[in-house]
């Protein structure tokens, strides 16, 4: 069903909710064990609740709020709401769960309905300690989903599905490996300006091209990290946000649309690059916020794989379909360029927090004062959640 912007109902929700606090764990320090070497997969250091609790405490401190001022809770993967509430001694009036963008939208609705005023959104994932598998024999045999249904033919992993998407893009539009490589190089450059990022060593396009393929045509640096971490975000009713420690960042627009028909067949992925969902989300998020792609100062997309950026830039109208390859070259997506993207280093180079880490980064860019990583004059930031057809977007603006 085609989505259009409900100006009467969605329009008035602009700027009714603010981000007042953000907290993250020490991604880089937690990644490295004794002697600065990366912790081995399966070498247990933390569990998800340890990480989530630490992030929550930091987000509350950032906001200058006490935990008893939280009256709504959203839990992300891999947490159970029941255990989280008990662990943190919370009796919320409302709770939700889901991915980061989904939780932000749900919390904004709950606050606007009067169900709660101040929501903590918390994520924790000890995926390196737990040696979480994202492909191969440990993720076969369950229900129906494209990433393991085709195991009998040897197709497995999210990475291979995005490799198929990029190969299709190459075949249709002549996109080159060097063009895709510009994304990993830019995000790594950003990570090197972020002391909390896991990856701190710059890479060149030559390094990118020399790195081994995993699922060709995707190479090592097209893949996200596997690391442990936690993220928390505090959302509050805008009229109450002024009492907090930080300058509020407003939630100015959001949109949601999904593209699931024949998803296991890979139809929306390979025949559409999920652009139908992108266009429908764009048709909500931009008019709600009263801005367009040209107004976006800082951009972040879900980047479990570099190629997400090509698809979302094209789908949201930053460039024409098929022109993502040339668009991302020559520094355009780097800090100092026309559209700085994934300025924390993203999930490729900062931390794979399944997009939760993008939200604090965009909030901090709008607060300002990030030193060399600061996007000068940033007033409007956009997050795009482009994950296997479950598309959402959030637009944040600098509050007064």
């Amino acid at each position: 069903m085609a989505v259009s912007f409900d100006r009467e109902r969605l329009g008035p929700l602009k700027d009714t909710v603010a981000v007042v606090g953000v907290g993250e764990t020490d991604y880089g320090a937690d990644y490295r064990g004794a002697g600065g070497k990366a912790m081995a997969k399966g070498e247990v250091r933390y569990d998800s609740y340890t990480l989530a609790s630490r992030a929550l405490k930091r987000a509350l401190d950032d906001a200058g709020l006490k935990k008893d001022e939280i009256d709504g809770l959203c839990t992300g993967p891999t947490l159970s709401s029941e255990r989280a509430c008990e662990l943190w001694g919370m009796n919320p009036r409302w709770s939700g769960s889901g991915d980061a963008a989904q939780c932000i939208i749900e919390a904004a609705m709950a606050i606007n309905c009067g169900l709660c005023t101040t929501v903590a959104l918390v994520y924790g994932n000890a995926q390196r300690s737990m040696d979480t598998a994202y492909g191969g024999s440990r993720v076969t045999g369950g229900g129906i989903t494209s990433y393991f249904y085709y195991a009998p033919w040897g197709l497995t992993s999210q990475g291979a599905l995005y490799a198929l998407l990029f190969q299709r893009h190459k075949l249709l539009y002549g996109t080159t490996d060097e063009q895709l490589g510009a994304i990993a190089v830019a995000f790594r450059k950003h990570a090197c300006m972020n002391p909390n990022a896991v990856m701190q060593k710059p890479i060149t396009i030559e390094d990118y091209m020399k790195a081994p393929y995993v699922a060709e045509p995707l190479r090592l640096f097209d893949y996200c990290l596997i690391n442990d971490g936690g993220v928390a975000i505090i959302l509050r009713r805008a009229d109450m946000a002024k009492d907090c420690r930080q300058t509020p960042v407003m939630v100015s627009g959001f949109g949601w649309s999904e593209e699931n028909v024949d998803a296991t067949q890979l139809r929306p992925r390979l025949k559409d690059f999920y652009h139908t969902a992108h266009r429908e989300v764009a048709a909500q998020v931009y008019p709600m916020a009263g801005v367009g792609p040209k107004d976006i100062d800082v951009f972040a997309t879900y980047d479990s794989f570099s190629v997400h950026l090509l698809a979302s830039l094209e789908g949201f109208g930053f460039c024409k379909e098929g022109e993502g390859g040339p668009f991302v070259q020559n520094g355009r997506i780097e800090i100092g360029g026309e559209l700085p993207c994934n300025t924390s280093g993203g999930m490729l180079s900062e931390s794979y927090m399944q997009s939760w880490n993008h939200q604090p980064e965009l909030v901090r860019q709008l607060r300002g004062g990030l030193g060399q990583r600061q996007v000068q004059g940033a007033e409007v930031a956009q997050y795009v959640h482009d994950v296997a057809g479950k598309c959402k977007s959030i637009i944040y603006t600098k509050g007064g």
Partner: protein
Amino acid sequence: MATPRPIRSMDPYAEQFWAYTQKKEFRLQKCCDCGKFRWPPGPTCDKCLSDEFEWAAMGGQGKVLSWTTFRRGYFPEYPAPHTVIVLELDEGPLFVAYPVDMEVADLREGMTLSLRWTDGQDKYGEYNLPVFGPVSS
């Protein structure tokens, strides 16, 4: 003994699909009410929600949409390099398989390939796996 392969995702509808492969029949569900093909197998037509369907024989030809080559091994049964293709069947559904009787370097966007069978087994038993190769002249 048939070739061991990574385990199939099994349910009552998948069971029927794989049972046909034992006779080397490549059949997908087709809705009796609106005619839409569906894959993977399932109880309901996603277009009209009808649960009336037939197992329609496929012509066994499709055009190449995309492919990927695993350079890192994920399954012991499929050591790297292993290439997987996605085809658009003449009847409309997209279908994942792997190429046989040809070089990966010869794959082209839109090229027509045709059905072959190879054997397979897992804990659910023996079956035949539909794979695709060059159209025989």
